[in-house]
């Protein structure tokens, strides 16, 4: 029997509404108790001055393996996840081939085991090949470990297909994750439609393109009794619709990314492709609504929406560059900068968006918690350390971040999975 004590940290566990300085006792890979004077142990981790939380969970990560290993591999994505404080990630199925069958889902699980970093759960495709036409093998995908179904960044244009998917997925108690975007209104778009798209002569993607799909999918969730999760919402109208739907008891959840909180469409003025992301960076009034939505609980989770792309793909003409920002390793300091430092969220609230919130969406009751008896997936944060974001030091294979050289505060110090240290920051 091995035992470990994480001593003297500020323990914040949302699942128990706990926020106090205490020790966390771990034995045989599981959390045993939170308190003081917990007796003799084999190993001690000093967490004084640090925050001790359940490990973070990301509900949708672009792992790019198999098929796009020039961007990312399971090994590099999971190493990046650990460095960002994540102990569990769900892998997007937009690989080559698409994860639309049992064998492909099992490959995701196998690659994660080989990498030996954090936990990885597959997400299965909603439609075969992400083509939006025929349903993928949803039942077999669920049996092979898929926690939810999604066509990733590809919109499901047909309301009929979406309706059938929601009805069918309900049998397996799995939600459908959608990236809400009406493809007819976003065709050839590269940024948010508004003053700056006019100024720059760039094709815009209006907020309405997102809000139309949010509205449709909420209506279909209500019709079918299925469960919908909206990935990376970005507009005032989306937040308002989700708020109303939740009040009506419709099964809808949603998340936001840190980059949609930290950056606005004004950043496109340098025509820098690192700011090209989908949904696009919006104007400041939308950003304010997202922060309100996080504060009042309308928005359940924060996801990095990690989308790695090799430099040769991003260093091109703006309209030929893929959408996406690499985000696992910068999520925490950006959340601190945009939410904690301005006093918009408490630490308890922020950690709910990274632990219990995503655990609920993925239906992982054993994750995102420090309750006694759960596997000891734990993230220790030093909230005071100042550092500068240097993409050259990323564990991710890709460097497509607009946050290079940002001065930030707060860093992941230690990450444990099953009570075993899997990551330790340099200098700790």
């Amino acid at each position: 029997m091995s035992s470990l004590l994480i001593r003297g940290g500020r323990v914040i566990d949302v699942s128990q509404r706990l926020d106090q300085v205490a020790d966390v006792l771990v034995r045989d890979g599981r959390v045993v108790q939170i308190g003081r004077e917990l007796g003799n142990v084999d190993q001690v981790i000093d967490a004084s001055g640090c925050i001790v939380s359940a490990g973070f969970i990301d509900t949708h990560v672009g792992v790019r393996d198999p098929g796009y290993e020039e961007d990312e591999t399971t090994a590099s994505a999971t190493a990046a996840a650990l460095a960002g404080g994540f102990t569990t990630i769900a892998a997007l199925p937009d690989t080559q081939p698409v994860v639309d069958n049992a064998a492909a889902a099992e490959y995701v699980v196998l690659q994660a085991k080989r990498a030996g970093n954090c936990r990885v759960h597959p997400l299965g495709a909603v439609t075969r090949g992400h083509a939006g036409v025929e349903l993928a093998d949803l039942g077999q995908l669920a049996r092979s470990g898929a926690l939810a179904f999604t066509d990733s960044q590809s919109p499901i244009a047909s309301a009929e297909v979406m309706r059938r998917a929601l009805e069918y997925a309900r049998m397996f108690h799995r939600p459908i994750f959608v990236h809400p975007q009406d493809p007819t209104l976003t065709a050839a778009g590269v940024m948010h439609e508004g003053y700056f798209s006019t100024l720059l002569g760039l094709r815009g993607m209006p907020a309405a393109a997102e809000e139309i799909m949010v509205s449709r999918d909420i209506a279909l969730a209500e019709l079918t009794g299925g469960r919908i999760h909206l990935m990376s919402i970005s507009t005032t109208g989306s937040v308002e619709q989700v708020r109303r739907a939740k009040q009506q008891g419709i099964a809808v959840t949603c998340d936001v990314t840190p980059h949609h909180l930290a950056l606005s469409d004004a950043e496109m003025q340098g025509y820098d492709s690192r700011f090209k992301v989908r949904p696009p960076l919006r104007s400041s009034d939308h950003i304010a609504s997202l922060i309100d939505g996080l504060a009042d609980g309308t928005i359940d989770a924060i996801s990095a929406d990690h989308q790695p792309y090799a430099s040769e793909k991003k260093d091109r003409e703006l309209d030929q560059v893929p959408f996406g920002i690499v985000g696992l390793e910068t999520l925490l300091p950006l959340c601190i900068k945009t939410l904690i430092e301005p006093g918009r969220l408490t630490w308890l609230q922020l950690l709910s968006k990274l632990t219990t919130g995503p655990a609920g969406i993925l239906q992982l009751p054993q994750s995102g918690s420090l309750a006694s008896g759960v596997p000891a997936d734990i993230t220790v944060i030093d909230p005071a350390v100042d550092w500068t974001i240097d993409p050259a030091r990323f564990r991710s294979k890709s460097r497509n971040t607009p946050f290079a050289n940002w001065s930030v505060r707060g860093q992941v110090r230690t990450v444990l999975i099953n009570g075993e240290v899997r990551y330790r920051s340099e200098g700790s």
Partner: protein
Amino acid sequence: MPTLTTPSTPSAVWNRQHLLGLQGLSPVELRLILDRAAEFKQLHAAGHTKLDHLKGVTVGNLFFEASTRTKTSFGLAAKRLSADTVDFTASGSSLTKGETFIDTARNIEAMGVTQMVVRHSTSGAPHHLAKHLRAGIINAGDGTHEHPTQGLLDIFTIREHRGQIEGLTVALVGDILHSRVARSNIWGLTTLGAKVIVCGPATLIPPEIERLGVEVSHSLDDIVPRTDVINLLRIQAERQRSAFFPSIYEYAHFFGMNGARVQRARQDVLILAPGPINRGVELTPEVADGDRSVILDQVTNGLFIRMACLSLLHEARQC
């Protein structure tokens, strides 16, 4: 004969290495280009058709998107200043073999090209090159963003006929959404004190354009009597993803310049069109060839504007 190698205007005020757009240029900088172009035009009229401002300099004309008049105009402007020129066009190039446009430009730069004239179908592409290359970049039209030398030659032509820009009302008519000419005209004209009206179907006016300091109108008939200059932008069929108006016939009915509309305009109205013009669509042949049209003046002046830009940028690099 004037000393042709010494600029007559103090070069201290022009210190830009690139001309990427008219946004952000000061009135002084704009006038500097216009005055330099006027000087070249006078020299040309006096018989000085070959000058030596760019002797020993190699100018690259990189046209990643098709162009006839702009490319010819830049090529001729460089030759009039005694530069060597290399031309690059996208068709039949390494681009079709998969080379990126940055690598293509780097290769051309490696041949000793220090100034590049760049046309590209993507907005911001010249800005991207300016970050990656040491050569001076002149934007010869990027996507639906800016076309600074076209804006300058339009303004030059107006100033030549009206003496000054300040206080004039200029209407830009047509497809504002997809027009790089419109954006360059808006920046240049408003900076020099003109009032600008953009006029076109609601589907072709981009959102929040009022914030650029312009008035928006959807009725050509309403604005014709109160404008000094009407610039008829081309309907760019090749840029339109879907139907922005019901038919060419309906467009011409509401937004085409015809004889009847010229009758209702001010006596001294100037009719401009950046071309290539679609006769019978943006304007009727009687207007295009009529006495208020300065369309061919624009083409002539384009040469002097491009000579001015090439020479000023070259001098800025010498400092």
